[in-house]
Each structure stands twice: as C-alpha cells, then as structure tokens.
C-alpha cells in the first residue's frame, strides 16, 4: 500500500490509472498538469509519482526537474507515448521509464520495483 500521484493531461487516462492502481491496493491521487502536481506536492508527500511527459504548457521533463529540485529522493516513473524521450538525459534522473499502453502490467511491475528499491513496503 503506497501513495501514488498520477500526473497526466488526459482525463480518461487518469481515470484508468486511478481505477487500476487502486485495484493494486495503492492510494491514488490525480493531477491534470505539471503545475497542478507541484501544487499538490506542497502539502503532500506521495511515495511515487507517475509522470506523463507530453503535456501542454509545462511538460513532464520540466515538471520532473522541479519536483526533484524540491525533493531529490522522490521516486518518479516517466510515462509517455513516445519512446524517443529516452534520448533526453534529463529522463535519466527518473527511476523508470514506461511507454504508455493499454496493458498496465509493465507499469504496475515498475511501480513495485521502484517502491521495493526505495524500501517502501507494498
């Protein structure tokens, strides 16, 4: 059981993550944009953040920088439609990188791995 923040500009995709990750036993919070996520982080400290890269306005990479600037230890999984974002070295600072898919198995596994490596009980 962990607190997970999902950041994605696609409303229905957020709903999907909320439903599926809740099924996994996580306590899921949602944010529709980078600024919204940063706002949330002012008063909350999730165990892990699933962060979409391609967002209008502040994109995921920029948001990642800001999140890590505040808390270097914050576990972040980047989640996007493109695989080419791996080329941006900024993405290396993320704990994991998952390409979006209708099958959330990979995402779920990565979440478990990251939480485990950070010593957070599932």
């Amino acid at each position, binding site marked *: 059981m962990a607190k997970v923040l999902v950041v994605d500009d696609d409303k229905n995709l957020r709903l*999907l993550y909320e*439903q599926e990750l809740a099924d996994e036993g996580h306590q899921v919070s949602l944010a529709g944009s980078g600024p919204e996520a940063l706002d949330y982080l002012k008063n909350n400290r999730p165990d892990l953040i699933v962060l979409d890269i391609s967002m209008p*306005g502040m994109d995921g990479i920029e948001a990642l920088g800001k999140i890590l600037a505040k808390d270097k230890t914050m576990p972040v999984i980047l989640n996007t439609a493109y695989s080419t974002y791996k080329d941006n070295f900024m993405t290396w600072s993320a704990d994991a990188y998952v390409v979006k898919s209708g099958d959330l198995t990979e995402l779920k596994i990565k979440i478990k791995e990251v939480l485990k490596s950070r010593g957070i009980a599932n």
Partner: protein
Amino acid sequence: MPEPETPSTRILLVEDDAATRHAEETLLRREGFTPVAVATGAEALTLIQKESFDLVLLDLDLRSEPGGLEVCRSVKSIPHLAWMPVMFVTGDVSAETVSKVFEAGGDEFVGKPFKPEELVARARVLVRKGREERWLVERARKLAEKIAERDDELDDLRRFAQDIVSSLPSALLVLDANRTVLFANAPLLEAVKAERREVIGRAVTEFVRKEALAGPLSRALDAAIQTGQPSRLRRIEDFLRGNASRVSDLTVAPIDYAGVRQVLVVIEDVTEQARAEQSVALERAKLHDIVNAMNAALCLISRDRKIIWTNRTFDLWFGDAFGQPGFTSFLSNMARNDSWVEPVFERGQIQHVSWRVFTSHGQRRYFANIIAPIRAGENKRVEQALVLTQDVTEQETRVEQLSLLRELTQFLQRTLDAERLNHVILLCVTAGHALGFNRAFLFRRNRDTNVLEPQMAVGPTNREEAFKIWAELSEQGRSLHDLVGEVERLPLLEPASLFARIKHVRIHMDDPAEIVARTAIEKKTQVVLDAEHDERVTQPFRQTFGSKEFVSVPMIAKGHVVGVILADNLYSGRNITDDHVKLLTLFAAQAALAIENAYTYAELEKKVLELRKAQDKVVHSEKLAAVGKMAAHVAHEIRNPLSTIGGFARAVLKRPDNLERVNKNVKIIAEEATRLENMLKGVMDFSRPTAPVLKVGDLNATAEKAFRTNAEMLGSRHIHSDLDMDRSLPELMFDENQILQVLHNLIRNAADSMQQGGGLTLKTSRNGDMAVLSITDTGSGIPEDVRERIFSPFITTKPDGTGLGLAVTKKIVDDHGGRIDFDSVVGKGTTFRINLLLRRAEMSQLAPAVRTVDMERKA
C-alpha cells in the same frame, strides 16, 4: 564860362577906414555887385571860409594884424580858394610894394586915390578871370578823380584776368612772332617741370619736342603769326618734353597786343579721353570681327519688321543682296510667324524658335534662332530685335538618327525571340530611314563550337528585285516605325533566297584570314572599299557575297563577341561613309545587347524550368516529410485514447461482474472511440482538403446556423453568446459547408479557452469590398510564443487537440481567396476575423487558387 555881373557876384571888401569902406561899398553896389564889407583881416579870413565870393578887395595898409599881404597869402594857401582873385588898394605904388603884392599872390592893385571907373573895370576883369580859373581848377579836379577811378577798374580787370588764367586747367603759352615765350601759366610749368624764369623769354623749342613742332603745329603757328588765322590741332602725342605719352588737343590763336602780333597756345591734356576712345575703337573692331567671323547669322529687325542690319554670315547664308530667294525665305518665315517676333517687341521676351527650310539647292537645313529685344529711348521701348541664327542641321540630323536608333534599340530590347530579333536587326540595318544599307547579313557565334554561323540575310538578290522593293517602299511611304511594328505581328519569313546563298558558310573564329572572323577576333569594325584588291578579303568570300564595298561590324555584349553584321550597298552603289560606319557600329552594340538579352532570357527560361522540376521534387519530399510528421503526431495522439480503451477493456474483462464499473468503463471506451474518429476526420480534412464549391449565398444565414448549432454547448459551459449581424451585407460567393466548419472550429476554440465560462460574440460586418466574420471570446488568450505558429498544422495547446483545426480553417479561408487574422490579449480574450471578398465579379480570380488545389490533389 564867365558870367555877367549879377547881384550874385559877391565881393569881400576889407577896409579899416570907415569912410573909404563906405565909399567903395556904395560904389560897388551901384555898379551891380554885392559887396560884403569887413574892417579887419581876421574877419575876412573867417568869412571867406564860410561864404562864397568872387573877388577879394583888400586894403594893403591895414592897421591891425594880420596885414593885407598876410591875408592874401592865407587865402591863396587854401587849396580850393587858390583861384580866388585878390585886388589890393594901396596908397603906396612903389615898385617895391608892387613886387610884394605879387609875391604874396595878389592879382591886381589900385593906387589911392583911385578913380571909381578904374576900380570897377579892374574888378570886373578880375572876377571874370577868377571865374575862368575856378572852372578850370574844378574841371581839373574832376578829371583827376575820374582818372583815379579808371585806374581802380583797370586793377580789378587785371586781377580778374589773372585769376582766370591761373585757374584754367589747360596749359597756356603766349609766344611772340619769333616763337619766344612771353607768358606761361602754372599748368604749363607743371607739365614741363620748370620754373617760370626758365621758360619766359626762352625759345619754344626748348620744351616742345622737335618732332611735334615740325608738323602741323609749325604750320599752325605760322598761320597765326602771319595771317592771323586761328587753328585747332587734335590728339597731338608727346607734345611737351618731359611729359611723355600724354595726348593733347591744341588751340592756336593770334592775339594782337598793342599792335604787336602774338600767339596764344592753349594745350588741353586729353590723354584719358584718347585712351578711352582708343580702347572703345579696339573693342568695336574686335566685336565687328567676331560678329562677322562667327558661324552664326545675325540681323537686326526694326519694329516695322524690316531687316536693317546683317552680318557677313547672314549675307552668306541668306544671300547678300536683299531679295534673293534665301533671304526671301528668311523674311517670309519671319512674317508668317510673327508670333515669334511679336512677343519680343511687345513684351520684351527672348524667343527661341527653330526653322526647317529648304535651300535653293533643295537641301534641308535646320536653323535655331534666338530673338532678343533691344531697347532704346527714354521709355525703354523695344525698338529693334536682334536675331541670332545658328545652323544646327548636323546636330539635328544626328539627333534624328540617334532617336531613331534609340527607338530601334528599345524595340530590340523588347524582342526576346531569337529569330524575330535577327529579322528586326537586319531590317534596321537595311531600312532607308536610318542606316539604309542594301543588304545585310547576320552571323551569330555558336558558343559551343566557336563558329560564326549565318543566321539570316535581308535584301534583294538582284538589281531588279532591289528596284522593285524600293519602289514598293516609297509608294507605301511607310516609316521605319511602321515596318518594325509590322515585324512584331508578321509571321516569320521563310529563309529568303539571299540567305540560301550563304546558309552553308561556316567561319571559324580562329581563322583570321576571313574578314568576318577577323572582325570578331579584333573586335573592330572592318571597312572594305575595294574588295577586289583588298588583301583582307578571300576569293571564296568574294564569290559568295559579291560586294565591292562593304562593312563588317562586330556585335559585342559584355566584352564578348556574340556575332557579326555584314552590310553593303551592292545595288545603289552608294559610298559607305564614316557616319554610316559609326552609326552601324553603335547599332551593332545595341543589337549585341539585345541578342545577349534574348540568349540570357532563353537560358533563364531553361533555368526556370529546371528550377520548377527541382521544386516539384522538393515539394514532393516536403509532402513526405509532412506525412511522416503527421504519422508521428497521429501515433502520439492515438496512443492516449488507445491506451485508455485498452486499459478499460482489460479492466472490464478482468472484472465483468462489477456492472457499475463496467458501465462506467465502457462509456469511457465509447468516448475515446469517438475522439479517435474525430481525430481521424481532422487528419483527413487536412491531408485531403476539398476545393470550395462556391455558390452565391447569405453569409448571415450561415453564421446564424453555426451559432444555433453551438448554442447548447456554449450554454452548458456557462458561456453567454451574442449574435451581431450586419443585415445590409450583400450576398457573396462561398462554400457554405466549409465556412460552417471554419465557424465550428473557431467557436469550439473560443469555448475551450473559456473553461470558467465567459462571453462569445459572433459578428458579421463589412469592410470595403470585404465581408468580415468575427468571433470574439473573453477567454485566456493565445500565448505569445504560439502566435506565429498558430496556423501551422499539429500545433495545439489543448490536451485533446489534434493541432489541425486552425490549419484546416486557414486553408479553407485561403481557398476562398480570403484572409484570416486575429488579435489576442493573454487573460483578456481573442478575436478571429475572416475576411471574404464581396465582389462577385472578382470571384473568377479565385479560379487559379482552386486549380492549384486540384493539382495538389492529383499530385
């Protein structure tokens, strides 16, 4: 004159013996005198000073002092009474007494006792004598006074004369008959730089130059001295010694003084006048020479339009005897065109006029005239007009030729078709108006083979044909302008028979033996006057062309030889003059430029074609790139909905029993499927846009339709909407479906920018010849960094945008020939405006745009 005794004859009687006194008094009164008697000498002397008397009768033996002699002496010593006769009466008549009486100045004496008759007679004589003497004395005195007065006058006159002489600016000299100087005034002394004493009494030769004296001056002096003949000598140079380079006027006049003949010489220094006169004369002579020598005719015309003076050139040109034909033409020109002369006389204006006249030899001459006013008299009326006439025939001819050349050149530069250009060039060379050669051949350099190839030939093939052509030309009387104009319209000529003769000739540029090649190699015009004997001409050339006299001109453009023009006068035999050669060379340079232009143009066309092909390729690859970009975009855009659909589908599969959740998930799946469909439609719209189908319609009605369709959506988003229609908007051509799509896109964008609600206005208006549709919202505005790219495809700020809405919108507006623009303030809102052309007649101009779209679709 003595007067008779009258009572006015007064006698002073001096007798101290009373009885004697009384007797004498009585006696004298009785005899008609007026006696005044006194007893003493003192009384007598007092009285004689106060009153006037004619005689003093004095007793010599007065007992009181002064005595008789003393009284007499006193009277006689008074100057104005010196004449007064004094007669003594005495008892002593001794010789001693008598001599005393006369010594004292007495005039007579009578001894006592006297006889009365004797006393009276003596008194009478004495009175008369006294009066006579008195008259004489008076007269002498008056004469003396008069003489004194006259002396004064003479003094004045002398002074006056001296003043005149000394104040005269002229030098004066008085000579005697021996030419010795009697008098010289100050200016003369000054002129000869001498003192008076060095001049007076000397011979005139001492200070007058011998040469001056030898000539007319000597004769004049002789004439004055011998015959009293005065004379005047003008402009005598260096007359006085020591007074070099002065010029004088002399007046030589005889004067007779005291019966002696003398000569007065007046010398006026006129050096300044003489010099002025001399320079005026010089100037006049110079001017006269210029006026006569100048290569322009000059004449003066009086107010009654008569020629009153002409210069030599005028006489030469218009006949030196008035009335000759040339002159008549000058006059008749002047008379016929009095409007030229009239402003000169009436308003004092300078006139410039040109005349074209035919001389008696039938030659055409051009004259340029300047007519200038000449004023005279007190009121400065224009009394004469000066006409300056210049022969400008040569200039005019040149100007005519040059303007013709310019015209030809302009025409040449307009002609870009090579064949036609060749024809025009040769036509210009042979047309009689400018160059007028009989035949002309054009060689062009082949840039690849470096061979001069014949391109065209113009001219008759034989003499008969030549005459025929000339006759036709002169009958038609067509100007070169007409000919050239026709070339533009005429179909190109078949290769003429003249051309057939030379078409196989090939002249290699590296063969200087051939004159055409030499022209090109040396880049120099070659003139051949006798082809038979000119070593520059080869035998084959003679045979082919047959010209005896010809000119070969290089056509040089930008330093390179592009060809050679060959021209001759085979049939007319007219000599090729320097002028013709010059003109042809000039023309060839222009022709070369035209050929170069045509060549460049052809090259350019080729290049443009190549470029178009290359561009097509580029466009094609660009299209591929766009498709790739679109594919990536689409891949990205459909990843989200696909992930959502897949995810929820799996969730449903996993938990089909939770019906509520299944319901919710399936609903989302359906939503996402719709989203995918819409996206696909947008992609299709952009990648395969349809040409607008233009129909006349009411833009207001279309706007209202779009407004109604979206009203519900806007209401649900708390957006207040307004419609503002310009009802006067006329109908116009547009594709209703496409404009509806544009409006839907813009309304939806507006609504998306107002997440918290707001206001939207859809408005129609007219701006000149444009109908304007505007959509204004109170939304978040367009961020500055996006504005430039807003109409580019795949740009979106929206979470679920395709990035195609505005791209498609712009494409539709462009296809309509319209314009889309916007104003936006971040945080305040945005207005989009679609401008569509109102004029239906202009709609046909849309056709090219539509065709472009068609072509793109085919591609």
